[in-house]
């Protein structure tokens, strides 16, 4: 049953692909140990996933996940027993192939003679379990820097060559991940001996080298069986979902040139006000290779040992010569680092110095995000929207799929929520803030925001303001309509992880934000304070009233309401929604805002938010334009360089720049 073929099988086939159940991890660890290797793998230590020596699978995390945002890392408890249910932690494999400190040689003076002796420890044989795609890419970068000639770091080469690599495909991602942008993951393609993809109860096991093959044929043979097509399919789907989740947070096309053209950008000085130049990013980075040699002398001052340690271009002394430092200002040092990683590294080594693992973002003590800085300093020439681009699912103008009304609910006197089932299965993959083109033959199709995703369909909340919408509101259970979608982009809820979120909306504008609130409530701990500011014309026009009470009472969401006009029974606020902010105590330095409403209201809100320290890059609005095709082909909704339907409808104010609120655009 053993295959002799060494190359990695195609993803779609099951030939030569194996299944190892979770208990089989112990067999894997034991097999590697029996091969005379010290096994290094993930462990839980001091509130993080730390790569350290392991002797059994019990030393590894079981059912542990993580949350990572800029400057913040927390372990979480998963509701399953997965061993690799997190992404990369603070340590990188650099620690083992390029240790923090090594002794290089000793020297000694004896009278007028001097002598030197190199220290060449024979590296231990190691095995790494749990190496992610970005980390394999990091080995590749280090190989180019340290072991591709013309000069080589023999110590690195020896350690690197001795390591057996058990890779793990990423089936989860965090907000700091951007391997997709750097072209390094999440799929592990090569550079491993064995690769695991974690499934519910075990792993899909792939072989990547003769050494891996030997293990599979030898000590692991009893622990594995051929994988089933379902296992192969599920593994591929999970990794693909990870790719989709990460999206493309850092458009890299032309980045090298863009960045190097910005050496005088004023942003460098602004970053330096935030950057502490502590060097954490460089030491957390799996590819940074700078070191310094310190000589330890004996008390006679005649014998010495040279010791090489990781150093950082952020330390003031790093570029110091007798006359001073070449990079004396913090801004110089930040610029040096970023332009090297994403620019000049290419010129020197034919690759970027960054693999998109996100460690420099998570472990920056003050939460500086290289992606944000790169986008600000060297914005893409054709700016693509920051919110995740959704792959088009309904590409043509007329691709309507029939759906059936299974429930209706009268929300207010003129607003109805339709629950639809039988919609295109694509809707089940839809995301928060998307819309559908809705058609009742006889009326022009209209874009309607999806106000809820259900198991087999969606909900639409529609205000009967014109003939078509009134017709929709009049539908009864059992009636049908046509749907095309889901369309447009989404609210960037991942950016809100770990931050406070402010949602400001009025009237029917709450509908596209309702799925956001549902998602927040389902995973509340990942977010900071969440505040909803909502305005309606009268108390009777307040949408989702009962639900709103649950959001406040059980969802951990602060709900603030105001109405334009009220009767005597109303004890709440009266006035426009921005007035609700007047008494608010919060500050927005850490907040992100989602705003949906008429453009004038959004403008006023944006001004108010800016006054509280929410920057334009963190204020998202949803634009309303005339849409017909919903896929950027008809031209109706063009706004400057965007098609609102395709590139939006969600935009950050930074993206929109001075086009937002400008008359006549």
């Amino acid at each position, binding site marked *: 049953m053993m295959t002799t073929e060494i190359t990695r099988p195609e993803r779609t086939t099951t030939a030569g692909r194996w299944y190892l159940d979770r208990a089989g991890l112990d067999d894997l660890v034991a097999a590697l140990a029996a091969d005379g290797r010290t096994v290094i793998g993930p462990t839980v230590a001091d*509130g993080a996933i730390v790569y350290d020596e392991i002797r059994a699978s019990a030393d590894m995390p079981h059912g542990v996940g993580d949350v990572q945002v800029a400057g913040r890392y927390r372990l979480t408890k998963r509701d399953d027993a997965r061993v690799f249910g997190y992404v990369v932690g603070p340590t990188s494999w650099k620690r083992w192939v390029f240790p923090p400190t090594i002794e290089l040689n000793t020297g000694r003076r004896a009278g007028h003679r001097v002598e030197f002796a190199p220290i060449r420890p024979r590296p231990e044989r190691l095995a790494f379990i749990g190496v992610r795609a970005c980390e394999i890419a990091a080995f590749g970068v280090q190989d180019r820097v340290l072991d591709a000639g013309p000069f080589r770091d023999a110590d690195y080469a020896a350690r690197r060559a001795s390591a057996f690599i058990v890779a793990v495909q990423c089936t989860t991602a965090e907000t700091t991940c951007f391997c997709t942008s750097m072209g390094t993951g999440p799929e592990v393609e090569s550079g491993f001996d064995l690769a695991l993809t974690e499934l519910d109860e075990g792993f899909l096991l792939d072989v990547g080298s003769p050494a891996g093959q030997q293990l599979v044929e030898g000590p692991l043979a009893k622990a594995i069986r051929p994988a089933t097509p379902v296992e192969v399919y599920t593994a591929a789907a999970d990794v693909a979902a990870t790719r989709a989740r990460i999206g493309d947070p850092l458009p890299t096309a032309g980045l090298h040139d863009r960045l190097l053209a910005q050496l005088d950008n004023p942003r460098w000085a602004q970053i330096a006000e935030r950057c502490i130049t502590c060097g954490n990013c460089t030491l957390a980075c799996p590819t940074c290779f700078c070191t310094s040699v310190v000589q330890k002398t004996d008390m006679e001052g005649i014998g010495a040992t040279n010791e090489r340690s990781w150093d*950082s271009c952020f330390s003031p002394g790093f570029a110091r010569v007798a006359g001073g430092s070449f990079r004396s200002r913090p801004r110089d040092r930040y610029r040096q680092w970023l332009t090297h990683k994403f620019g000049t590294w290419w010129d020197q080594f034919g690759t970027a110095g960054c693999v998109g693992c996100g460690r420099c973002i998570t472990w920056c003590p003050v939460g500086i995000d290289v992606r944000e800085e790169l986008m600000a300093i060297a914005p893409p020439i054709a700016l693509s929207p920051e919110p995740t681009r959704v792959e088009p699912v309904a590409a043509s103008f007329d691709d309507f799929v029939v759906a059936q009304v299974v429930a209706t609910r009268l929300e207010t006197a003129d607003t109805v929520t339709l629950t639809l089932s039988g919609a295109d299965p694509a809707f089940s993959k839809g995301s928060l803030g998307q819309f559908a083109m809705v058609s009742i033959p006889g009326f022009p199709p209209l874009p309607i925001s999806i106000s809820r995703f259900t198991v087999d369909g969606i909900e639409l909340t529609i205000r009967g303001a014109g003939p078509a919408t009134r017709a929709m509101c009049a539908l009864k259970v059992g009636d049908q309509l046509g749907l095309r979608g889901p369309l447009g982009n989404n609210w960037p809820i991942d950016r809100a992880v770990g931050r406070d979120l402010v949602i400001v909306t009025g009237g029917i504008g709450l509908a596209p934000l309702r799925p956001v609130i549902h998602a927040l409530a389902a995973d509340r701990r990942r977010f900071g304070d969440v505040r909803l500011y909502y305005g309606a014309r009268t108390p009777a026009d307040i949408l989702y009233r009962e639900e709103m009470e649950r959001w406040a009472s059980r969802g951990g969401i602060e709900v603030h309401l105001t109405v334009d006009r009220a009767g005597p029974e109303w004890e709440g606020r009266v006035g426009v929604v921005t007035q609700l902010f007047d008494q608010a105590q919060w500050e927005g330095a850490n907040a992100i805002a989602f705003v949906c409403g008429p453009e004038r209201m959004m403008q006023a809100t944006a001004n108010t938010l800016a006054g509280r320290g929410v920057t334009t890059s963190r204020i998202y609005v949803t634009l309303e334009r005339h849409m017909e095709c919903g896929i950027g082909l008809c031209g109706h909704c063009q706004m400057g360089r965007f098609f609102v339907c395709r590139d939006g409808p969600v935009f950050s104010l930074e993206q929109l720049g001075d086009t937002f609120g400008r008359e006549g655009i």
Partner: protein
Amino acid sequence: MAAMAQKADRGRPGEHGHAARGGTPRPRVGVVKLASCDGCQLTILDLEDHLLELSEHFEIVDFPEASSARSNGPYDVLFVEGSVSTPDHLRRIGELRKQARVLVTIGACATSGGIQALRNWADHDAYRAAVYPTPEYVESLARSTPISEHVSVDFELRGCPISPEQLIELLTALVTGRRPQLRDEAVCMECKRRGIVCVMSAQGIACLGQVTQTGCGAICPRMGRGCYGCFGPREQANAAGLARWFQASGERSAEEVGQLFAGFTAYAEPFRSAITDLGGTRGARRSGGGGFIAAGGTGAGRASYLAGTRRMEGIDDDGR
């Protein structure tokens, strides 16, 4: 004065064939103190494995804590512990400087003014009156200051207390006649090299490691807590930037952020400015009120001595 005679000559330095390298006289070393806890000079005695070796390379001519032998200089190398905090210190430090070829300040007190420099934000008279019932006998200056504010300093060893490794490095550098290799980098660097998980990013603990000079071995993060800056600000420390982050990340008021810097090297810039910009120290604000001082005291007169002799019953471990 100095009736404390040299003991029988057998103890006198330099007479036992230990002179280093071809009979060159050993450098004359002194260790003296101003306002301090003695911990830094104790670090010299804590060089257990090197202490006796050290005495073969250096002639220790003044080290009152360890030896009755006294000299009043001159010194080839003089280690000074403690901050300048009394009128007498002001006078002494000028004299000591004249006696020392190389003057090395050791520890947070000598290099930054020490924890006692927190009084620099306060009303000194109120402090004095609060601690001592008859303050007029207490001679001290309104500010506790680093030695470098008064005389030139050749080398600094930071820390509360200093690091034995850095002390040895300085001593060997002095013996060899080279510059000591003392890294000017953040504690974070050593923390990361040691593979310690950042307590700030992973646990939300406030840590000053990023703005603090390395040298301690990142012991606080290693021990699961935040760095409290006892090695003082590193070169170009962006204390203001860190303070802004502490405030912006939402969990600490300006006052609390100020307290983070109000530790053992509070009076060193830029920690000093950070504290002042954030409103000074809490203790100083409080000591401004006379009512507090009056409330001081020793708890005297509450129970008689005899009352204390009553045997207590049912005492458990802690007397609870």
